[in-house]
């Protein structure tokens, strides 16, 4: 009881800070309960949050002095890097194309696998709980492991090069995409499915004729989005030896070859922008 009285006494002060709405709280005790926490508690929460953040700053070994010393170094590189080198430009362009290829093939393989597994994973197509749980776990497992980690594993298994990167992209994307596909299918209206079910048609025919036409714009949109994401991912994959422009990037940094580095960065920028533009144009056309 006293607790409520105290809170109500607190209200005008708290809300007064926000400028003039305090009187509303006074007249409506019910509203008062939904209003911000009392000051003491607010302060405690803020203090704990600040302390937690400070701890994280320590753990992340944030060191402004290192940054201050490092910045001029970077500025020096920028000066050194100009003009970007055109030496071996052809090789770089081929590597860039390789990066795009890793993303495209990886995403493509993932689309095929995701289309198969999203059907047992979708609640409205698969009534059996066991099958659905198995499909979902497979998708979640693949989604939980980053393409970077998959690529490391595949480099060990199939050797250095773009194929390992492609497999890495494919496996992770399969997990994410299968889950999004399944959700897309679960969002479709139930009526047309029931109508098809009542004709006695099996699942394959129903999916082909009734489900796919309805969900295809959603699926294509998801696939294009994943492709955009995978272009960036496959650049990073080069760093673990999966080929592509990322590998050239790492080599240039290791050799402190700044003009070449600048060229690579420009190529990456153009490449990512081009894919994003094409992909978002295509997605806008979906209806």
């Amino acid at each position, binding site marked *: 009881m006293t607790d409520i009285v105290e809170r109500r006494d607190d209200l005008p002060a708290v809300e007064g800070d926000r400028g003039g709405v305090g009187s509303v709280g006074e007249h409506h005790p019910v509203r008062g309960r939904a209003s911000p926490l009392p000051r003491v508690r607010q302060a405690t929460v803020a203090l704990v949050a600040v302390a937690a953040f400070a701890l994280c700053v320590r753990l992340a070994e944030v060191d402004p002095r290192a940054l201050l010393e490092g910045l001029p170094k970077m500025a020096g590189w920028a000066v050194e890097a100009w003009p970007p080198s055109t030496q071996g430009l052809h090789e770089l362009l081929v590597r860039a194309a390789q990066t795009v290829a890793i993303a495209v093939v990886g995403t493509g393989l993932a689309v095929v696998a995701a289309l198969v597994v999203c059907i047992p994973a979708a609640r409205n197509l698969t009534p059996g709980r066991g099958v659905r749980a198995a499909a979902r776990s497979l998708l979640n497992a693949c989604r939980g492991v980053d393409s970077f980690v998959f690529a490391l594993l595949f480099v060990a298994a199939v050797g250095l090069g773009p194929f390992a990167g492609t497999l890495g992209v494919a496996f992770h994307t399969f997990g994410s995409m299968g889950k999004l596909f399944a959700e897309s299918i679960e969002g479709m209206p139930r009526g047309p499915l*029931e*109508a098809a079910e*009542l*004709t006695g*048609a099996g699942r394959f025919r129903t999916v082909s*004729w009734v489900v796919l*036409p309805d969900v295809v*714009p959603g699926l294509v949109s998801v696939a294009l989005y994943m492709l955009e994401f995978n272009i960036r991912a496959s650049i990073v994959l080069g760093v673990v030896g999966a080929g592509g422009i990322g590998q050239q990037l790492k080599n240039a940094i290791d050799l402190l070859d700044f003009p070449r580095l600048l060229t690579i960065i420009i190529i990456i920028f153009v490449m990512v922008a081009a894919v994003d533009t094409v992909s978002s144009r295509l997605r806008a056309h979906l209806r």
Partner: protein
Amino acid sequence: MSEPGAPTLQVQGLGHCYAGATVLHEVSFDVAPGEVVAVIGPSGAGKTTLFRAITRLVDPSQGRALVDGKDLVVLAGRELARARRNVGLIFQQYNLVRRLSAIDNVVIGRLVHLPWWRALLRCPTGEERALALDCLERVGMAPHARARADTLSGGQQQRVAIARVLAQRSSLLLADEPVASLDPTSAASVLAALRAVARQQSIAVVCSLHQVDLIGGFADRVIGLRDGELVLDVAAADLADHHRAAVYRARPEPSLDCEPALSKEG
């Protein structure tokens, strides 16, 4: 097919509960081949539930629903799918695939007969396509065969849905308020089309209606549902005002039931 003269549909003591509330109480009736039965009843009487229970879109809590002598209630999996080919259902909300053309929606009625690769490529045989077009023709929708379903009006969509069920060539046709969204002229022509297929192909038709005045000239028999119970089963020709009154009679108000008790206390 069972022996000639046997009813196409036999509903025996069919009941259904939603979350403990019984909405269908031991409903029983038969429908002969070629017979047209109208189902009337106020909103919430259980008409949709009756159709969903017969087709096993919901699992009935009791009773049997025999189509051509096969009890759908006890079937499962492939056998249920096979038995369902003999049952066509026209839904209250059409249930077309929005992004498919009218004719592709009608082909859904033939889906089970298409080779798997034709289903995948969405490329029916010329024969199936002609049949689908013929079904559209019968409901007056042939001129809109290529139109996408979501560009059609409600009434047009319902006619496409009817064509889809006609394409299925089932021996039993269930229709849940098929003309509720049609103008009077197209309502009459759609019901006439349903009656014609019933007669020509000896299909049993069970059709729920809200417009009682449409029954004459359409149905052979009328059954009435109220609060999930079958309260009427008469020949359409004998349908009289007191029958309608029995079906549509206002439910007794709970407060009325309480009044005597209150006055006793007071």
